[in-house]
């Protein structure tokens, strides 16, 4: 078994053990009020599974695309050592310029506006 797998096994077992302790050690007296969802003391108005703002979805899509571009740029530490560094630089700049153009378009179209 790999060392990192053994480490992950240990780090999985310890939180499991902590959860077990936390659910068995205290005295559990559940009642209706304790188990209801919190909304400042009132009964919850409407369902909690709200439709959420589209801006979050847009942000997630932006993150996805830019992260894919970063994944394309990840071999740079090795590729900058190639004998023809011009090629590396040219290709990396092409990727970055395309990414920048995408960012400019997004910015200009208002996709980043109050992009909360």
């Amino acid at each position: 078994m790999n060392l990192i797998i053994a480490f992950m096994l240990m780090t999985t077992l310890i939180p499991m053990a902590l959860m077990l302790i936390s659910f068995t050690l205290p005295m559990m007296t559940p009642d209706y009020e304790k188990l209801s969802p919190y909304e400042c003391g009132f009964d919850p108005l409407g369902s909690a599974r709200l439709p959420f703002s589209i801006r979050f979805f847009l942000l997630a899509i932006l993150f996805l695309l830019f992260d894919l571009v970063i994944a394309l740029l990840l071999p740079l530490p090795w590729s900058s050592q190639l004998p023809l560094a011009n090629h590396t630089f040219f290709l990396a700049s092409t990727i970055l310029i395309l990414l920048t153009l995408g960012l400019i378009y997004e910015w200009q179209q208002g996709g980043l506006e109050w992009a909360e």
Partner: protein
Amino acid sequence: MLPTIMNYIINPLALIIPILLARRTTNSPKRKIIGYMQLRKGPNIVGPYGLLQPIADGLNLFVKEPILPSTSSQILFILSPMLALTLALTLWAPLPLPSPAADLNLNILFILALSSLTVYSLLGSGWASNSKYALIGALRAVAQTISYEVTLGLLLLCIIILSGGFNLETFNVTQENMWLILPSWPLAAMSYVSTLAETNRSPFDLTEGESELVSGFNVEYAGGPFALFFLAEYANILLMNTLSVILFLGSSNTLFSPELMTTNLMTKTALLSILFLWVRASYPRFRYDQLMHLTWKSFFPLTLAMVIWHLALPIALTGLPPQL
């Protein structure tokens, strides 16, 4: 048999247990420091100078009744804090202090990849709680975290190009002459702010925006599971600080006294953590759109330029790092 037990069981435990204890021991000076910054004394009742306060807090949390809300998705509710703590502890494995518990060749890549998984625990806890506050808090937390991860990834890529590989141990060699913070201080500054945002720490702590959302994504958590989130947060903060020190303020590995390097590293980590606290006591919270503006419109264009800069200059001035 004994080497196996040592390697696979005792070594990980020797790393994990001090991390879990670190919250207990550092929390007390932290609260006193923040207290004095706010012109008040921190906790001073529980032990001598209030030093036993965090232990009392931890005991308090584990003895309190954990709540499983009746309307929540139970399995996800229980799994999210476990995932958070698992990731926070696993991320410590590849850190060279100076020799890592798990020696991976692609250290930083592993750390970047796993730290991106923490958004799952945020999202899971917010969704599973079935409460509006929790859901909104979780969405904001996730949006903030993923935004700052983009810039953090690119920034780290810049110094990785300078240093020659994804292995964190090469950073010790890279910084034998001078700290990397000197040639790349804009990167260091941006990455410090990004780590503040990644760990949802003031002034970016909208997700736990206490005055707005009560407690954000962990509003429905009580007792033990809350303690797990808390532990995960502190472990993350210490991890990010240690990573910043290794990357920018590195110490060289003196072969005959590795303990000297560990002490050096951890002292700098402690100083960076105090800087975290100082920032927390000094600045008001960011508004959400200001936070997003900062990352997408301020940091990100500069980071893209930095990548081209850090790629072009070593090639042009024949300063490429040696390839391992």
